[in-house]
């Protein structure tokens, strides 16, 4: 039993060699090409990532009617923007937005795995995929958020959304105070992926 708790000494080196071996074999056997994996990664680096979500939130902040449309019919509002083709693609087929307010804070979790709104936020960070987060956030969201540096008054309701079926939830964070007069592009730099899953607030000023 105690062997179960030991890691191989060359854990990462071994995994790197194994995945390289797998990729090579799959290419040799004609399953994928030598460009496949890089093309997939490039798609998420250039086209589907948190930069999309940041633009979406910035627009919602400056245009209250757009924000209302985004909450009422998320896919239609997203379609109004000039995003690349694919916003209803893989893991974006059923995206839904919820908004934070002074009295409501939303936190997204997938207790069963790691369901995440790919087109608007790209790929999930490790904290979201962590079984510890998944197990704890559904029961003690306020405590988890405190550990993440967020404290809420007793009058704030915490809503936890478990992505257990087809919906891919994300959060429109509150617009930070003191950002009046910022352009949409500047506002977008304040929006982090964490703020769009509810584990952080938007930044109050651009980091340098």
């Amino acid at each position, binding site marked *: 039993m105690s062997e179960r*708790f030991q890691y191989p000494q060359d854990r990462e080196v071994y995994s790197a*060699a194994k*995945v390289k071996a797998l990729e090579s074999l799959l290419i040799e056997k004609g399953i994928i090409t030598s460009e496949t994996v890089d093309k997939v990664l490039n798609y998420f680096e250039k086209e589907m990532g948190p930069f999309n979500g940041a633009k979406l939130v910035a627009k919602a902040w400056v245009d209250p009617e757009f924000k209302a449309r985004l909450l009422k019919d998320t896919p239609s509002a997203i379609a109004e923007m000039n995003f690349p083709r694919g916003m209803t693609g*893989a893991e974006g087929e059923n995206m839904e937005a919820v908004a934070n307010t002074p009295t409501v804070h939303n936190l997204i979790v997938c207790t069963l795995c790691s369901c995440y709104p790919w087109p608007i936020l790209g790929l999930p960070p490790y904290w979201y995929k962590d079984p*510890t987060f998944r*197990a704890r956030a559904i*029961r003690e969201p306020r405590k988890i958020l405190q550990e993440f540096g967020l404290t809420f008054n007793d009058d704030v309701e915490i809503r936890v959304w478990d992505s257990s079926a087809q919906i891919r939830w994300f959060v429109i964070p509150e617009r930070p105070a003191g950002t009046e007069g910022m352009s949409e592009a500047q506002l977008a730099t304040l929006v982090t992926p964490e703020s769009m899953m509810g584990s952080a607030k938007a930044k109050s000023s651009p980091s340098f």
Partner: protein
Amino acid sequence: MKLQHNLGGLEGLGPVDFEKRVFVEPWETRIFGIHVAMMALSQHLKEAIPKYPIDQVPTSFKSTWTWADLRKGAEAMHPFDYFKYRYYEKWLGGISAFFVSQGYISQEELVAKTSAYLKEKGSIPESRNEPIDNQIIEYLRVGDPGERELAGEPKFSKNDTIRVKNVPPVDHTRLPGHLRGKTGIVDKVYSGFYVYFCSTGPDGLGEPMPVYRVRFDPKEIWGELAEEKSVVYADLYETYLES
């Protein structure tokens, strides 16, 4: 009963590692790309929305591979290994085993090539085939929506009180275990009927059915361990609910 289906509410786990990176090792990006390719080349897409022209894609991959297959692999693990191994380590284990079990590669070849790459940093072989990569990117752009034609009427309406069924535990589920037997209120009836990627047998998923957004009072789920002023929402397939 599987730990992986019952993580919600597990205690004693300590603080969350607030790691913001998607990949913590460069090699992890490769297994991610391979998983996406498998889903994009999967036979089941012939019957998806849209019906992808999979038979015209010149790949030697002739299997079905969906999120359900990846999840089943992770849910089949020894529960301690599920916590021990990182996210993409689980993917690498499950996906390699799949390719071996389906006969695309042999365990011997995989071991031999892994040893070879451990000894020498070679490069991967070169091989181009645009139609394969085009299908993969098209899948990313178009997706695989679960919505199907209406096949009847939803059993429940908004504001109905429902109870979550205690369905037989099987190898795979989309029912978070902490909700079994709990009472909630239907907050929304999603329009449309939804399939799941596979049948889960006695668990009930597979055929097109309604899905509901259900609101739970955390005290109903966790009793006195619930936090004040909080609400839990879960999206649940109709097969998991009863009046």
